């Protein structure tokens, strides 16, 4: 399946891109995208515990099952206000 990955703030800086279409295995979970990011930049490993994941603009748990066409966002610790 293909998902559209969106990165913000420090996650975008670490990855070096804001948006990317990624190909994942059929039974991919939300956490699968983090594994993809760790492969691209090992520093993501240190960040993993503090990153949240949103699918189609809703926060999800790491084991959330992804579907083809999902918009998956990596949400570093937020700091609005």
């Amino acid at each position, binding site marked *: 399946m293909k998902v559209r990955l*969106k990165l*913000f*703030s*420090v996650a975008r*800086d670490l990855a070096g891109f804001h948006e990317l279409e990624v190909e994942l295995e059929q039974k991919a979970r939300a956490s699968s995208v983090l594994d993809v990011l760790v492969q691209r930049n090992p*520093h993501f490993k*240190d*960040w*993993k*515990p*503090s990153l949240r994941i*949103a699918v189609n*603009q*809703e*926060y999800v748990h790491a084991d959330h099952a992804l579907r083809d066409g999902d918009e998956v*966002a990596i*949400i*570093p*610790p*937020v*700091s*609005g*206000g």
Partner: protein
Amino acid sequence: MISLTLHPIDIGAAINQVITPTSGGLNVFIGTTRNHSFAREVKLLEYEAYEPMALHTIEQIEREAREKWPIYGVAIVHRLGRVPVGEASVVIAVSAAHRNEAFEACRFLIDTLKREVPIWKREHFVDGTSEWSGAKPAKKAKLS
């Protein structure tokens, strides 16, 4: 009224939005750019958002506040882009029949916004450097 804006926030407009004939008072929280962060001199803050999700999440927390307190008008405006020292980055105005509900709901809205809404601030320091606020990897954060 919920909005994200690249321009200075019209605080008066946000307040006027929430005044209703049934309101006995309103509470306003205004977050402004502070000139220091952990003893470092700050020149300005730069905000970015995952905009559609930020709007959607603010709508959710407004709904939650309305379920918890009998409030009337709610205005939540967050500025994006560069916000110089002294200018407002966020304005939350809440009206209710009585002050307690307005105070409590307003506090809940700003506290929850800061925890849940996908908006990030980058601190630009007077010395020319900049960094994402509070952005430390979990491992290092535990040590500090």
